[in-house]
């Protein structure tokens, strides 16, 4: 530790650097250096304006930084700026270069941008700045955020940021009335003129968004120059709007005016009346009529469905009876047809069969006629011959027939002797006899 300290002192005092120089000579050199630097023009907002007997002092400021400025009063007077043109909040373009006052034994030194020219910023200057800021915010994706928010078609409460006495307020109310909307409006009145209004507008938007019942916020003012509308191009205000979770409807200026809030808001409108329509997208009067139509359509659908199905069921219920009646008629018809057909058929067949029978009889008679007489005569003769050979005819002539007990004819004496009882049948009756031989044997 003891060895490190001298080394540190050498570095701090820097004995290897040139010098030491007398500070007054260095201050003069610095002054010369500064005054040799390039002359430029700067744009920014005037703040902290003050005047001494010989000079005017102010700071030129924007979002990223500031530079202290000074101008000799006699030079300022030659510029013939409009009365009150150089004031706090004014956007100005100054020409000049860096300067360093080296001070003295009694007075303090100081740096300033020594202005030799000052003019109020014109539309072109503002547009250039606006364009740069627009590119930056777009590159950061801030233009898409609000557009992704869901906007209720029928909010109950909307917040409105506008000037209390402005025509925009009246136009917005007229727009809401035209919508048939009679919800709740929370007015957040704020100054809406030039750049200095931006913080108040931003605060009003934030306060409205903090209220849970506010479903949409309208920011509106009438038309004006770009300088008038410059508050609505304020970077802080636009970043605030972009990050809100409540949709913002911007209606700043007229159609030709394009402020940065138009780019970051959920909807950009050309007039306060249009802003009312964007904040309440639903036409309440038309919606009421539409609901009535829906009610009618639903009632008709319900009644129609029941009635149509009742008719269908009725038709179905009537169907079987009708079918039966139809079938019965069909059957009756068929029965009649069959009966008629059968009557026609039987009559015909009967006549046909009679004709066939007649034909057959005639044919049979024709076929059998000559032979039949001959066969009858032959039969008669055969019958006579046959009758002549019957045993009864023999018995009638006086012969007797010997029969055994069983009625079998006994045709020999030996056969008769063999029987115990025999029967003699005559033409007029039978006589039982016993052969003598048989008695002897006994």
């Amino acid at each position: 530790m003891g060895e490190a300290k001298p080394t540190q002192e050498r570095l701090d005092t820097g004995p290897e650097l040139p010098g030491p120089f007398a500070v007054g000579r260095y201050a003069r050199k610095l002054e010369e250096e500064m005054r040799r630097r390039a002359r430029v023009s700067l744009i920014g907002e005037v703040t902290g304006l003050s005047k001494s007997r010989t000079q005017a002092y102010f700071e030129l400021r924007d979002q990223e930084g500031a530079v202290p400025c000074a101008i000799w009063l006699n030079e300022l007077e030659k510029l013939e700026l409009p009365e009150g043109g150089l004031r706090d909040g004014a956007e100005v373009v100054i020409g000049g270069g860096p300067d360093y006052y080296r001070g003295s034994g009694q007075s303090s030194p100081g740096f300033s941008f020594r202005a030799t020219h000052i003019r109020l910023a014109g539309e072109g200057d503002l547009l250039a700045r606006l364009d740069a800021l627009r590119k930056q915010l777009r590159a950061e994706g801030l233009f898409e955020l609000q557009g992704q928010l869901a906007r209720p078609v029928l909010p109950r409460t909307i917040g409105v940021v506008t000037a209390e006495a402005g025509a925009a307020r009246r136009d917005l109310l007229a727009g809401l009335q035209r919508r048939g909307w009679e919800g709740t409006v929370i007015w957040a009145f704020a100054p809406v003129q030039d750049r200095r209004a931006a913080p108040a507008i931003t605060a009003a938007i934030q306060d409205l968004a903090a209220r849970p019942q506010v479903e949409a916020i309208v920011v509106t003012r009438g038309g004006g120059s770009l300088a008038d509308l410059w508050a609505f191009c304020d970077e802080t205000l636009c970043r605030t709007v972009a990050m809100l979770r409540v949709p913002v409807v911007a209606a700043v200026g007229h159609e030709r005016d394009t402020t940065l809030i138009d780019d970051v808001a959920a909807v950009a409108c050309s007039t306060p009346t249009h802003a009312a329509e964007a904040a309440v997208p639903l036409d309440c009067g038309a919606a009421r009529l539409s609901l009535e139509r829906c009610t009618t359509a639903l009632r008709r659908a319900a009644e129609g469905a029941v009635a149509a199905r009742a008719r269908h069921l009725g038709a179905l219920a009537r169907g079987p009876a009708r079918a039966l009646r139809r079938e019965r008629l069909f059957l009756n018809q068929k029965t009649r047809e069959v009966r008629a057909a059968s009557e026609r058929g039987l009559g015909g067949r009967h006549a046909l069969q009679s004709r066939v029978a007649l034909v057959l009889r005639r044919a049979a008679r024709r076929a059998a006629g000559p032979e039949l007489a001959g066969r009858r005569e032959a039969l008669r003769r055969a019958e006579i011959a046959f009758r002549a050979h019957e045993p009864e005819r023999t018995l009638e002539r006086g012969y007797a027939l010997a029969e055994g007990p069983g009625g079998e004819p006994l045709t020999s004496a030996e056969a008769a002797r063999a029987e115990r009882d025999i029967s003699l049948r005559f033409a007029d009756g039978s006589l039982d006899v016993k052969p003598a031989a048989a008695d002897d044997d006994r």
Partner: protein
Amino acid sequence: MTDKPDSYEAAVERLEEIIDRLDSGQAGLRETLELCKEGRELVTFCAAELDAVGAGLKELRLDELAEKLDSSARAES
């Protein structure tokens, strides 16, 4: 209808679906009656939403609301 719709637009969207379905003639009797019941509930919901913004415009001032909040906060403390 099983749940209350989230918003007026959700209710109207569902209502349009129902009417389209009914107009198509494809729905059976049971579905038709159920759709009609759901549709009537949606109409009631939408009508209530419209009534909520139909009873006269109400205008409030944010600065007065803020003052009320401040005074009530002071009263509580």
